[in-house]
């Protein structure tokens, strides 16, 4: 018994330290002083320069993926984030082999209990309900917990009359939870219907990549849909489409620019302009985004 207590004590101490505070800045996992190769232009980028440039390649503007902590840090006012529903954890309802291990690996590498981080925060004084999908956690896939947390965040925004901003980055519904993952598409979309009916503002930000069941549910239901520069956005995966139609896909297929051209998103924004753009958009929705006095 005392053994268990001894084990729990340091955890409790860590928890008390972390509770209520913003998620610590968790840089891309690279040792100091290393050069990184850009995935797009293959230039060598000094790691520090990349971080200073918000993980955007200074040579070709390629936007590296951000984890949830970095995204929150980028968007919210300092120390304004308080997390909700961090105590929801995935089970393995279909007893799918290797699912538990995959969850454990993602938990360890991201430091989060699931792929969706959500709560309340402020952006230049505007209080908002914010959610971020972390593509480093099982490709940001939506299973029961992610679906539940998104739904609760929407309900929270309804209760608190807050504007809602969700940053998506996901391969789609989580395969390991089968049909239960599919049902999360309805659950999240249904919650947005209620939010819509009471006049809530939902800004959906699509980041790289937003595909499958996430693209085909809540993420496409924003009053305003913002795509981050260069993000891959679409329903079906390129490989599946290629196999089905037996043709090569056109250049730039399913990029943010493609979706803008085809009328599927309101605007495409570079990461550097993202926060300012969101503030700009929030300002047009005055009464619900009334800035709090700091």
């Amino acid at each position, binding site marked *: 018994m005392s053994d268990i207590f001894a084990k729990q004590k340091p955890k409790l101490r860590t928890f008390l330290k972390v509770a209520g505070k913003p998620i610590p800045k968790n840089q891309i996992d690279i040792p100091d002083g290393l050069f990184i190769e850009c995935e797009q232009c293959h230039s060598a980028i000094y790691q520090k320069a990349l971080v200073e440039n918000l993980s955007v390649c200074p040579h070709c503007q390629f936007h590296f993926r951000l984890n949830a902590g970095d995204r929150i840090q980028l968007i919210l006012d300092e120390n304004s984030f308080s997390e909700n529903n961090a105590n929801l954890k995935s089970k393995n309802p279909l007893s799918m082999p290797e699912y538990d291990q995959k969850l454990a690996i993602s938990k360890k590498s991201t430091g989060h209990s699931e792929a969706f981080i959500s709560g309340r925060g402020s952006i230049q004084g505007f209080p908002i309900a914010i959610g971020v999908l972390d593509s480093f956690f099982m490709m940001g896939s939506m299973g029961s917990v992610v679906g539940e947390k998104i739904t609760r965040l929407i309900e929270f925004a309804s209760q608190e009359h807050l504007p809602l901003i969700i940053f998506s980055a996901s391969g789609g519904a989580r395969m390991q939870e089968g049909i239960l993952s599919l049902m999360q598409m309805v659950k999240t979309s249904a919650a947005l219907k209620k939010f819509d009916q009471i006049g809530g503002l939902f800004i959906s930000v699509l980041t790289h990549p937003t595909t499958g069941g996430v693209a085909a549910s809540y993420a496409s239901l924003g009053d305003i849909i913002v795509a981050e520069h260069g993000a891959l956005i679409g329903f079906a995966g390129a490989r599946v489409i290629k196999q089905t139609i037996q043709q090569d896909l056109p250049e730039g*297929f399913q990029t943010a620019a493609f979706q803008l051209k085809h009328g599927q998103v309101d605007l495409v924004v570079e990461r550097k302009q993202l926060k300012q753009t969101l503030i700009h958009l929030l300002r047009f929705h005055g009464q619900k985004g009334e800035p709090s006095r700091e």
Partner: protein
Amino acid sequence: MNNIEEKVWEKVRLARHPKRPTASFLIKQLFPDFIELHGDRQFGDDTSLIGGLATFMGQSITVIAQEKGSTTDEKIARNFGMPHPEGYRKALRLMKQAEKFHRPIVFIIDTPGAYPGIGAEERGQAQAIAFNLFEMIAIQTPMIGIVLSEGGSGGALAIGVTDTLLMLENSVYSIISPEGFASILFKDSTKAKAAAALMKLTADDLLSFGIIDAIVPEAKGGFHEDIQFSLSQLRILLQKYLKQLFKLTPENLLKNREKKFRAFGVFEESKSEKNHGK
């Protein structure tokens, strides 16, 4: 190869059986005065998703169905039952029409999935599906669905947010095809049999999750072995569940639908950590 794998795969095989009746046949049998209404009023008329008006239990209803086609020519003409965005938009148009004229809606779900193609992406396949989910939760008329052979992922779900859902005994409803699942999880699409056994995609599985309300029995050897048997069972179940839905006030109809879909998901919620955001 174990027993469960064989049992589940037999269902997948029967669901895909070349002699299995498709939606048009079901419509002819169940709703002989069906008249088809075409088009989404925006882009075109999707041949894989059909809709129209009919009479059932002495009253007008709207029927919306995915049609796969039976012969090779028909299958090609019907795009193998894989709708484009205009199909889903036509479906929504007809749902809104049904709501306006207080007609209940019967859906026949039968698709391998929404079509993955260039045009489908250009015209917003993701948006079309998402918007149907968003709208269906609030459609103020009773809606009942039947999964006929395959309920393929978001492509099925986009007409699947119904008050009551029935599944034919040898139909499957899943997040992805067993082949797709095997290629993602095992990196080998030939392991579809093993995948199907893990996926919990049978009518029994979905009944146990509360996702469907009842199973329509089939003859030994599948639907095509005794079509009239399953049809008469289906008629009885449709009548029974429609009657139940008719008894509800419009408010309770929507409340029950919302409650049903709000509850889906299995997870753990530890009480030990404080929910400091609230």
